[in-house]
């Protein structure tokens, strides 16, 4: 059989996979990208992308970025501490196993269930709210109900950001070898020197990379906010929900696609930086 024919037959085996991803992944992506630059009457147009400069959309992007940045930094710091506590525990132990499994659930499974967890905790008749009001005499909502606004989102997002940090940062901590510490000590280095001169610089790329991943994670999250916030659309995923579900405003049919494209651009930039940092991490801690 000629070589070309053999190769063509080999390629045939991958047709189902490529056909499937073409329909359910590539076409949707193209719909967003092309739709963002299409006018309402068809034809190319920049009006949707220009409309992103409107104040309510810019404000939503700003709030989304702020929410993601704040929860990424908080999540990274506390998650790293928790990961370090786990890294010093016995590797096959039940403590580490259970915490890792719990982290996996909270980081990836959360969504709507986490919103209801916090409604049960600090909702208007939640466990903590009632306890503080009746037993301590403190009304956490004296300044207004903040659970369903940006401060509430920060609190609930932290609840899934810390576990995600544990999952992505633990492998880097496991890559630290005890011999490095012994080497630093045998040369007279103190614990402080070890952390600032050896472990710190080694872990820095992994820490920064993980923080970026947390940012992308919070920026893309939709379910928790959708379940928690029913009035107004403070962040960009909720603005897209508004564009998808509400009556189409004349002249703005493709605005949702432009906002979606904006999200993809932000996430793509962040993930590219993440991949670069990841490569640097792998040099020592892979």
């Amino acid at each position, binding site marked *: 059989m000629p070589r070309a024919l053999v190769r063509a037959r080999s390629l045939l085996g991958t047709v189902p996979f490529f056909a499937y991803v073409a329909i359910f992944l590539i076409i*949707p992506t193209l719909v967003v990208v092309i739709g963002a630059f299409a006018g309402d009457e068809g034809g190319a147009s920049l009006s949707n992308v220009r409309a992103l400069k409107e104040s309510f959309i810019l404000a939503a992007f700003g709030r989304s970025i702020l929410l993601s940045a704040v929860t990424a930094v908080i999540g990274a710091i506390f998650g790293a501490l928790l990961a370090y506590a786990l890294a010093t525990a016995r590797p096959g132990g039940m403590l580490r196993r259970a915490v890792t499994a719990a982290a996996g659930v909270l980081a990836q499974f959360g969504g709507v269930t986490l919103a209801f967890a916090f409604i049960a905790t600090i909702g208007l008749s939640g466990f903590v709210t009632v306890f503080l009001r009746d037993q301590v005499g403190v009304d956490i909502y004296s300044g207004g109900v903040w659970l369903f606004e940006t401060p509430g989102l920060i609190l609930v997002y932290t609840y899934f950001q810390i576990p995600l940090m544990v999952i992505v940062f633990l492998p880097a901590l496991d890559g630290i070898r005890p011999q490095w510490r012994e080497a630093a000590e045998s040369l007279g280095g103190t614990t402080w020197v070890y952390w600032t001169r050896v472990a710190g610089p080694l872990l820095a790329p992994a820490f920064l990379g993980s923080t970026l991943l947390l940012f992308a994670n919070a920026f893309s999250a*939709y379910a928790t906010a959708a379940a928690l916030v029913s009035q107004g659309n403070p962040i960009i995923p909720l603005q897209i929900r508004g564009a998808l579900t509400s009556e189409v405003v004349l002249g703005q049919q493709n605005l949702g696609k432009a906002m979606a494209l904006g999200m*993809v651009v932000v996430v793509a930039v962040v993930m590219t930086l993440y991949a670069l940092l990841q490569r640097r991490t792998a040099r020592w801690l892979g």
Partner: protein
Amino acid sequence: MAGLIARRARKQAAFRWIVLVVLGVFFVLPLIAMVEFTTRGDQQTWSLLVDWPQLSETYPDLAEGIVASLLQASFTALMMLVLLVPTAIWVRLRLPGLRRLVEFICLLPLTIPAIVLVVGLAPVYAWVNYFLGGSSLTLVFAYTVLVLPYAYRAIDAGLSAIDVQTLAEAARSLGAGWGTVMLRVVLPNIRSAVLSAAFLTVALVLGEFTIASLLNRTNVQVAINFLGKSSATMSVAVSLAALLLAFFLLLLLSLLGDRRRASR
């Protein structure tokens, strides 16, 4: 030196417990609150939750959502396996040049938020509606894309751990066809990788909300959210049950992974 190491071990243990206790309170408090919230007064929330006929009578939407989610999870796992496992093996054996492309495509959904995917999927699902109707089971198509990155990484790790090329050549030289190579030679060797891909798929699908809710289909998360507006107690109870179920799935997965390593 020995004294120094013992002192450090003690310090680390103290640090470990402080961190675990402080963060433990933050993470366990909402779970305790959920238990308290659902057992307030003399409500029959939990006994209702385990009594299926009664539950489906009282909350038909919730029962429908639970059934829909279980079906979606099993069919997505099946679809993912049928689509991904043969392709991954085939690309490794016959088309190594395509490996980077397949990997890139499989990891692509990580950079496309689900909410963005929904925007693009809406027109595609207009056609799905036209050909297959609006059943909640049609979400399996979108979910298979959603779980691609996680499933691919699990299966790829499994394939990297064995010598696929040699196994396949040995089987072929003994007269096996490609079907036999895949089903009876390679597949049994990556059993645990396939199992962990399936577990992750089930956990992810049971937690999915974005696509289901915006494409106007139901699953357990959509039902929880909908029910929250009328009966918050039941919503919280189902949320807690779902979180615990996912936790045990992942704990089982970690124990399974360990047994695999031990038996090697």
